[in-house]
C-alpha cells in the first residue's frame, strides 16, 4: 500500500513539472516548442546542461576526478543541426596516466503523430580518432534529426589528474538552464575565478557537505630478512568534508561572434578552478597554487628553460667571429638577431620550454619558439648584453585568470639598456627590435632575470606606426591622371609590409597595388629597406583612367583618388567586443595636384579638423590650399591607442564615417 502511494505521488510530481531534467525525460511541450523565447534567429538552444565534477575514492588509486556531463539540446531549424555533432577530446597517451570516456549515450527525440519517438545513437555511430601522440577524440553525429527535435547525450570523463578543465558557462547557442557542481574532498583545495572580461557574469556559490567514504589501501609489510613481502588490506570508513562550488543559472545568452576579435574565448563566460594546496591529515600543507613570481621562478629553474641559457660551447666560435669587430651594443644586437634568424627557423610550435635542448635546435637549424628565443637570450648574454627571457601568453592562449604555468605559452627576449627595453623575437622572420609579431601582442610579459627574480613588462607597443604618403599628379588632356607616389611605412606597418611582400615578385606587388582601382596602372616600382629594419620606402609611377567625372565643362575629382577606400570597414552598428588595432597609428597624406591648362578651381571642399573626443584618442584633419597652377592637400588620421572599446564603437564608427565622407567630397574644376 505504501508503495502504491509513492508511485502515485511520483506521477503527480511528474505532471506538475513540464520539464524534467533527467536523461530520457523529454516532454511533449519541449518538443512542441517552435522558437527560443520568440527569437527566430536562434536555431538551437541548450535546454539543460548539467556538469558535475567530483573526486571519487578508488581503492589503490586514491581520489579520481570524475566529470559527468549531460546536455539536452533543442533544435528549432535545419541550421541548428550542426549542434547535434559533437567531438569530445581527451588526453590519452596510451600510458597509465590517461583519461577515459565512458557511459557515452545519446538519443534523438521527435514528435511523431503526437507520440514521442526515440532514436538511439548506436555504438558504430561513435568514431574514435587518434589526433596525435597525446590526444584522442570521440566524435558522433545524432541520427534522425528533424526540425523541432531534441537530442540528449551524456558521458563521464575520468581523469587521474588534479587539474580541472575550464568550465564553459556560455556557448555559441543560448542555454536555458545550467547546473554546475564541483566537489573536492577536504584534502584538495581549489581557488575559483570567473572570467572578468565576459559580458555575461554568472553567480557562483559555495557550500560544504560531508560524505562517508570507505578507504581501503594495501600496506606492504616486510617479513623479516627473508626478502618476501606480503600486502595487507586496510579498510576504514570515514566522514570526509567536501567543498562545493556550484552555479545554477538560467537564460544564459549566446556567445556572440564578431569580426575583428583576436580571441573570442577571452570574452566567454567561464569558471576556472585552480588547485591551491593539498592538505592530508597529519601532513604539512603542500602548496600548489602560486604567485606569478613563483610561477616564473619555477619555470626558470626547469632545465628546459633556465638550464638552456648558459650553454654556449656549440655557438661560441660562430658568435665570436660575428661580433669580433663590433664594439657598439646596438650593432651586436642586430648582428646576433639577424644571424640567429637566418640560422634557426621556427617549426611552428609554441611553448615555454626548449623541446630537445637549444643545442639540438641550433644544429638541426629548426626549433620551437622557446628554443629560438632562449638561444637568442643566451647569445646576447654571451656577447655581454643584459638580456633576459620574457614569458608571454599569445593571443591564442588568451589572458590567464590566475597565476599558472599554462598562463604562458611563448617566450621572447628583452635587453635592458639605459635607453630602455628592447624586445626581440627571433622566431618571426619579419619582427624587428621592439616590433613583435601580432601573435605576441597580448596582455603583458614576465621578464625573468638571472637567479629567477621576475617583473612585469609592457608588450603593447606605445610607438606609433606611421604610414606617410606623398602623391603628385597631373590631370591630362584626355582626362586621365598620371603621377608619382612615395610611401613610407614604419614599425608595425613595416612589419606587415614585409610579411606580405618579402620575396614576392615585383609583378605580383604591382598586381596588388593595381587592385586599388579598376584602371590603375603602376610602373617603376621601387622598394627599399625590405631586408633591414629601417622604414620601408616605396615609390612608383601611376596612370589612372576614369579617375574623374567630366560633366558638361566641369571636372569633378576626389583628390585622394584611390589612396583610402571609400568603403567603410565598420558596417556593424554596435559591437560586443573591442576592435583590436594592435598598435597606435598615424596615416598622413601629402598630395599635390597640377591643374590642367585651361581650367580653374570652381569649388574646393572646406578645411576640417575633427577630434573623436576630448581625450586625445584620435583626430583627423583635412587641409586644402589652392593656387592658380596647383592644389595642395594634407590629410592626417591618427589613433593613439591600440584598440577601440566596444562601448565607444558607435561613436568611433560615426567619426570614421565622417572622415570617409570628407574624403569623398569633390573638387570642381571649371573650363576657362
Amino acid at each position, binding site marked *: 500500500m505504501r508503495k502504491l502511494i509513492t508511485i502515485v505521488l511520483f506521477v503527480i510530481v511528474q505532471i506538475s513539472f513540464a520539464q524534467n531534467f533527467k536523461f530520457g525525460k523529454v516532454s511533449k511541450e519541449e518538443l512542441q516548442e517552435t522558437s527560443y523565447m520568440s527569437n*527566430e*534567429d536562434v*536555431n538551437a538552444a541548450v535546454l539543460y546542461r548539467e556538469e558535475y565534477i567530483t573526486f571519487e575514492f578508488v581503492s589503490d588509486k586514491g581520489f579520481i576526478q570524475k566529470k559527468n556531463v549531460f546536455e539536452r539540446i533543442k533544435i528549432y531549424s*535545419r*541550421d541548428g*543541426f550542426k549542434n547535434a*555533432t559533437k567531438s569530445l577530446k581527451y588526453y590519452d597517451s596510451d600510458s597509465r596516466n590517461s583519461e577515459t570516456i565512458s557511459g557515452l549515450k545519446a538519443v534523438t527525440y521527435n514528435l511523431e503523430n503526437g507520440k514521442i519517438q526515440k*532514436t538511439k545513437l548506436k555504438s558504430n*555511430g561513435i*568514431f574514435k*580518432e*587518434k589526433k*596525435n601522440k597525446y590526444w584522442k577524440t570521440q*566524435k558522433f*553525429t545524432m*541520427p*534522425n*534529426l*528533424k526540425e523541432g527535435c531534441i537530442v540528449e547525450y551524456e558521458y563521464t570523463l575520468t581523469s587521474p589528474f588534479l587539474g580541472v578543465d575550464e568550465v564553459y558557462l556560455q556557448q555559441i547557442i543560448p542555454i536555458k538552464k545550467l547546473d554546475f557542481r564541483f566537489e573536492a574532498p577536504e584534502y584538495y583545495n581549489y581557488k575559483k575565478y570567473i572570467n572578468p572580461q565576459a559580458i555575461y557574469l554568472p553567480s557562483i556559490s559555495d557550500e560544504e557537505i560531508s560524505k562517508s567514504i570507505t578507504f581501503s589501501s594495501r600496506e606492504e609489510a616486510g617479513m623479516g630478512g627473508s626478502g618476501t613481502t606480503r600486502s595487507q588490506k586496510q579498510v576504514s570508513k570515514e566522514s570526509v568534508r567536501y567543498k562545493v562550488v556550484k552555479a545554477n543559472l538560467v537564460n544564459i545568452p549566446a556567445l556572440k561572434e564578431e569580426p575583428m576579435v583576436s580571441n573570442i574565448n577571452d570574452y566567454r563566460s567561464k569558471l576556472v578552478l585552480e588547485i591551491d594546496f593539498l592538505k592530508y591529515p597529519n601532513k604539512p600543507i603542500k602548496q600548489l597554487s602560486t604567485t606569478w613570481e613563483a610561477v616564473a621562478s619555477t619555470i626558470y629553474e626547469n632545465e628546459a628553460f633556465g638550464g638552456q641559457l648558459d650553454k654556449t660551447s656549440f655557438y661560441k666560435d660562430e658568435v665570436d667571429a660575428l661580433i669580433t669587430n663590433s664594439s657598439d651594443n646596438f650593432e651586436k644586437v642586430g648582428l646576433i638577431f639577424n644571424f640567429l634568424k*637566418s*640560422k*634557426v*627557423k*621556427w*617549426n*611552428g610550435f609554441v611553448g615555454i620550454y626548449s623541446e630537445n635542448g637549444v643545442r639540438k635546435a641550433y644544429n*638541426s*637549424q*629548426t626549433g620551437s619558439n622557446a628554443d629560438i628565443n632562449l638561444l637568442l637570450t643566451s647569445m646576447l648574454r654571451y656577447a655581454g648584453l643584459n638580456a633576459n627571457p620574457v614569458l608571454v601568453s599569445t593571443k591564442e592562449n588568451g589572458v590567464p585568470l590566475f597565476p599558472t604555468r599554462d598562463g604562458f605559452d611563448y617566450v621572447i627576449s628583452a635587453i635592458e639598456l639605459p635607453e630602455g627595453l628592447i624586445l626581440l623575437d627571433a622566431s618571426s622572420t619579419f619582427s624587428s627590435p621592439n616590433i613583435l609579431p601580432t601573435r605576441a601582442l597580448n596582455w603583458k610579459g614576465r621578464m625573468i632575470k638571472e637567479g629567477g627574480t621576475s617583473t612585469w613588462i609592457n608588450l603593447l607597443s606605445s610607438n606609433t606606426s606611421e604610414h606617410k604618403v606623398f602623391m603628385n599628379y597631373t590631370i591630362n588632356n584626355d582626362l586621365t591622371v598620371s603621377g608619382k607616389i612615395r610611401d613610407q611605412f614604419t614599425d608595425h606597418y613595416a612589419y606587415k609590409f614585409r610579411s606580405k611582400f618579402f*620575396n614576392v615578385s615585383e609583378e605580383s606587388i604591382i*598586381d596588388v597595388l*593595381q587592385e586599388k582601382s*579598376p*584602371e590603375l596602372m603602376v610602373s617603376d616600382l621601387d622598394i627599399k629597406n625590405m631586408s633591414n629594419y629601417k622604414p620601408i620606402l616605396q615609390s612608383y609611377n601611376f596612370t589612372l*583612367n*576614369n579617375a574623374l*567625372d567630366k*560633366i*558638361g565643362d*566641369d571636372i*569633378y575629382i*576626389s583628390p585622394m583618388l584611390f589612396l583610402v577606400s*571609400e*568603403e*567603410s570597414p565598420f*558596417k*556593424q552598428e554596435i559591437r560586443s567586443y573591442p576592435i583590436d588595432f594592435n598598435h597606435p597609428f598615424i596615416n598622413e597624406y601629402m598630395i599635390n595636384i597640377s591643374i590642367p591648362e585651361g581650367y580653374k578651381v*570652381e*569649388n574646393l*571642399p572646406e578645411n576640417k579638423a575633427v577630434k573623436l573626443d576630448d581625450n586625445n584618442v584620435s583626430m583627423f584633419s583635412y587641409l586644402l590650399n589652392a593656387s592658380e597652377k596647383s592644389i595642395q592637400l594634407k590629410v592626417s588620421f591618427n589613433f593613439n591607442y591600440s584598440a577601440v572599446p566596444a562601448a565607444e564603437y558607435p561613436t568611433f564608427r560615426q567619426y570614421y*564615417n565622417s572622415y*570617409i*565622407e570628407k574624403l*569623398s*567630397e*569633390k*573638387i*570642381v574644376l571649371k573650363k576657362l
Partner: protein
Amino acid sequence: MNKITFLIFSFLFLQVYSQEGPLYQSLIISDELKENANAVIRLNEIYITIESYDKMIYSNKRVVTVLNERGSSKVGAYVGYDNNTTVKKLQALVYDVNGKEIKKFKKRDFLDESAVSGGTLYSDSRVKYLNYIPIKYPYTVEFYTEVEYRSTAFIPNWEPLEGFYVSTENSSYILDNKSNIELKIKASNFDGFNIIKDSRLSYSAKRLKAINSESYSPNFEEYVPNVKAALVDFNMEGVRGSNTNWKDFGRWINESLLADTQNIPESVKQEVVALTKDAETALEKAKIVYEYMQSKTRYISVQIGIGGWKPMLAKDVSKLGYSDCKGLTNFTKALLKEVGVESYYTVLYAGDNIRDIDRDFSATQGNHAILCLPNNDDYIWLECTSQTVPFGYTANFTDDRDVLIIKPEGGEIVHTKKYESIGNKQITTSKIYFTETGGFKAKVSIESYGSQYGQHERIQRKSKKDQKMHYKNYWNHINNLDVNLVTFENDKNAIVFSEAIDVEVEKYASNAGDRLLLNPNFFNISEIIPKEYSYRTLPIKIDRGFLDIDEYEIDIPESLIVESLFKPIRVSTQFGDYSCSITHENNKLIYKREFLVNEGLYQKEEYEAFREFLLQVAKNDNLKIVLKLK
C-alpha cells in the same frame, strides 16, 4: 620472383642516384625553367607494376627544388593509405642550394594523420607526410616511396605539369603490366609539349615550362598533358570489378555497388506510397518523394572502406537521417523505386567550374553523385545533398557537363541541363526618395532566376542580423546604409526568388559646393574587372552567362534642380551587351540599365576586347549626374 625484381629495381635506383649528382643542386637550373616557377620538378619517376587484378606496386622517385615559400606545397612528399595499402618504403632527403645533404627523413620520421577533409565526420583514410621546415631557399627534396595496393581501381595518372607556377625538368611514367589483364591507356594534350612516347606504356617529358594562372580560362586538366590508365579487370577494396567500356563499368557499379543497398524499411515504403497515392504522373510522384527525402535527411560524410564508391545502405540512411552524396542519392533512388518511378544513379565532377567525365575513357572518374530522372526524351537531375534546393535545380554545381548515368543495362555518358545566359536573370526595381542633403530612402525589389536564383536564395537562411549585413556588403558602395525591412518570397515551383528590402541612408551623393554629384545607378554597380595580362596565353572561358535588368524611379525634392544628365549609353560586343539611360520627367528621374554577358569559349586574342567591354560597363555604371540647390 618478386624479391628479385625488387632487388634489381633498387640496384638501378642506386645507380641513378650516383650518376646524377647535379640533380640536387639548385644553382644549375636553367632560366627557362625558373621563369614564373615557385618550384621545379627536377625528376619525377613513376613506376607502376601491376602484378594481378588485386595487386599493384607503385614506386616513385621524386626530386623537387623549391625556389620560394609558395613552392613548398609542390614537394609532394606524402602518401595516403588505408587498410588495403601497405607503405613499404618511405624516405626523404633534403639538400641545400649546393646539393649538399642537410637532412634525412626515414619512414618513422614522417607524420601520420587522419586524411579527413573539411565536412567529413570520419574517414579511415590516413596520410603520412613530410614535415620539413625550410631554412633557406632554394632547397631540394628527394623523395622515394614504394606502396603496395590491393585495390587496382585507381591507378595513378601521369600529369607531368603539376599545376600553375611549377615547371618540370624530367618526368616519366612507366606501367609494367605483369598480369594478363588488358590495361587501357589514354594520352591527352601532348601537342606543343616536349613529351616522348617510348611505348604504349612508357612516357617521358622534358623541360616543361611553368604555366601562369589566368582568369576566365578553361580547367587546367583540359589543356595540360596527361596519361590515364585503367585495368579492364580490377579490385576495389576487396570487390572485383570489370571495365571494358562505360556500359560494362556501369553494369558493374549497378550490380556490385548499388544492387544490395536498396532495401528500405517497410514503414518508410508505406509512407512514400501513401504520400504519392494521389499523384498522377511519374514526375509528380518524383517531386513528392524528393521533397520527402529532403525533409528527412542531411549531409554528413563518413568514409569507411569502400565508402569512397559504395553508397551507405538505404535502410541505414533512412534510420540515421544522414549520409553523403552517394548515400542520399541512392536512398532517393530506392524510395522512387517503391513508388514505381525509375531513376539512375549518376557519377560526375561537381563544382562551379564545369568539368566533364572523359567520355572516351571508362574508369573511376568523378567526385560527386546525383540522381537522374528520365523524363520523355530528356532528363531531370536531382541534387540529393541539399535540403532546400528546388526539384530539378542544378545550376552552378552539376549543370552543363558530361556525366555517367548507371542504367540497369549499363553505364552511359549523357550531358546535364545547361542554363542559358538570358535565363540567368536578375531584375532589380526600386522606388527611391532622394533628399536634398544627398541621402535617400528606397524600396528595392530583386527577382532572380536561373543560375542567379542559386546565388540569391541562400540569403533567406541567414539570421536577421546577417541578412542586414549581407545587404550592407552587397551594396558596399553605400556607406552607413540602414537596412530596415527585409522580406523574401521563394517560389520553388517556378524557381524564382524575390527579395524586398527597405533601405535608408543619410548621405549617398557627394558634395561639391552647392552641387550634389549623384550616381543614379543606386543598386547594381558591376565590379567585374578582368585582370590585365601582357601576354594572354589561354583561351577565354565563360561557364555561365547572365542578364541583369535594373529600373529605378527616383523622386527628387523640389529644392533641387537637375543641372546635368548623361546621354543614353549602348555597348554591344560578342561577349554581351550593355545599355543605360536616365530621363527626367517632372520631379522624377528614371534610370534604366541592362547588362548581358554571354557564356562561351573565345580565342585568347579576344581577351583585350573582353576586358575592354567589362571596363566600359564598370565605367558607365559610375556615370554621375549633377543636382543643384535652388
